């Protein structure tokens, strides 16, 4: 018999697993690092990290049988936080790796930054560094954080949800304004790396650990 953890940190080989774990510990959130679908299903809340490519990440998730568990978690109303690739994968589909079917928990696609129509010098890809996020409404995970706060991004693809009401925060890069925080019901997801975004990023992790949707 497995003991249900209060927070499950999903381990599917994502490179930022250690950093997310250390950040959660730093803000006093005890958590279990797990790739066991049953443990993920029974957890009180789930953190879904990610870094790298959508195709390989989806393959790892499917091989571990975690995709089904995540769908059930989302349906059951368990708070779920996706980070970076863990944010993108919540959508229907990504343009990355020749097109990758994702979890479909939020309607929309993940698109590639394309600045080829802009004059030189063009914005660099990946979009890497600190960029402000404008909050479009209030949300418990953003409590205590000012709109316009900077967060740390590293990505070449960005979420393009089809429902405007799923966009909680947005950022601009080049001529593109994109959704940098998504939220709906028990789901919240950040395109930026909350675990590497200093005090404001830590605040999001802490707020998430106390959030009852």
């Amino acid at each position, binding site marked *: 018999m497995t003991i249900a953890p209060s927070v499950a940190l999903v381990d599917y080989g994502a490179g930022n697993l*250690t950093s997310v774990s*250390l*950040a959660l510990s730093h803000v006093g959130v005890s958590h279990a690092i797990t790739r066991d679908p049953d443990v993920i299903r029974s957890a009180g809340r789930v953190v879904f990290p990610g870094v790298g*490519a959508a195709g390989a990440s989806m393959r790892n998730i499917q091989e571990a049988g975690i995709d089904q568990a995540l769908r059930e978690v989302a349906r059951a109303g368990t708070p779920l936080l996706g980070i970076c690739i863990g944010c993108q994968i919540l959508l229907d589909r990504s343009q990355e790796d020749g097109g990758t079917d994702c979890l479909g928990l939020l309607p929309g696609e993940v698109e590639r930054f394309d600045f080829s129509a802009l004059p030189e*010098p063009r914005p660099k890809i990946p979009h890497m*560094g600190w960029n402000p996020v404008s909050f479009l409404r209030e949300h418990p995970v953003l409590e205590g954080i000012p709109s316009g706060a900077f967060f740390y991004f590293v990505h070449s693809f960005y979420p393009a949800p089809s429902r405007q009401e799923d966009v909680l925060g947005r950022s601009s*890069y080049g001529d593109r304004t994109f959704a940098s925080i998504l939220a709906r019901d028990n789901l919240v997801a950040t395109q930026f790396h909350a675990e590497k975004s200093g005090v404001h990023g830590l605040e999001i992790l802490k707020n998430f650990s106390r959030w009852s949707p």
Partner: protein
Amino acid sequence: MLAKRVIVCLDVRNGQVTKGVKFKENRDLGDPVSMGAEYYRQGVDELVFYDITASAEGRGIDIEMVRNVAREVFIPFSVGGGIRNLQDMREVLLAGAEKVSVNSLAVRDPSIISHGAKAFGNQCIVLGMDVLKVGASESLPSGYEVVVKGGRERTGIDAVSWARRAEELGAGEICLNSIDADGMKTGYELDLTSMIARAVTIPVIASGGAGRPEHLADVLEPRIGADAALVASLTHIDGYTVGALKAAIAQRGIAVRI
């Protein structure tokens, strides 16, 4: 809008942060973990830990130090100086570093850049290059030559062609250190920085020569084109806070994270 970054570099020798002029006359300044944590609290955008004796002593990076930094510092940091192979890269990244930096290893074996980028993603691989002004010649058209071993050994490689090659191989970023400017406190070498920043499409970190906060603003101006400015003695020895450096940059109308 993406902010320009201020990066503090901590050269580590025998477990202590050290600072020398032109890679000589080093003196110890303190513990890398607590110094890194202090700069994190001051609002630095990124940290670099460089194990300056690991390569020479043929040993790997102090992984325990990397892990201790990752426990206290929740911004990106990179680690370099003792990376020998992919396994070393993997250990450093798994310990919580965001990026690894390769310098003389990449000169000896450029394929480490492509292998590292393939295994961990381009954004994880920083090419550190030390560059010496030598004057333009047929074999060194840019007038700048890549050097290794802290400037003691010339490679015959042109700085601009090396930067382009590194980008092709998959480097995510270039940390460009001017050996001539390093420790002189007369400002970054702007011509060199501008030449490299124009030659590649990946971000360029300017390093070497900062003596006043305004020097950071100079190199981050759009006409020069650096994406980040790296400092060491300005904060370690001269006592400037990260906030004071950023204020000088912001005053020039350049976006920084305050």
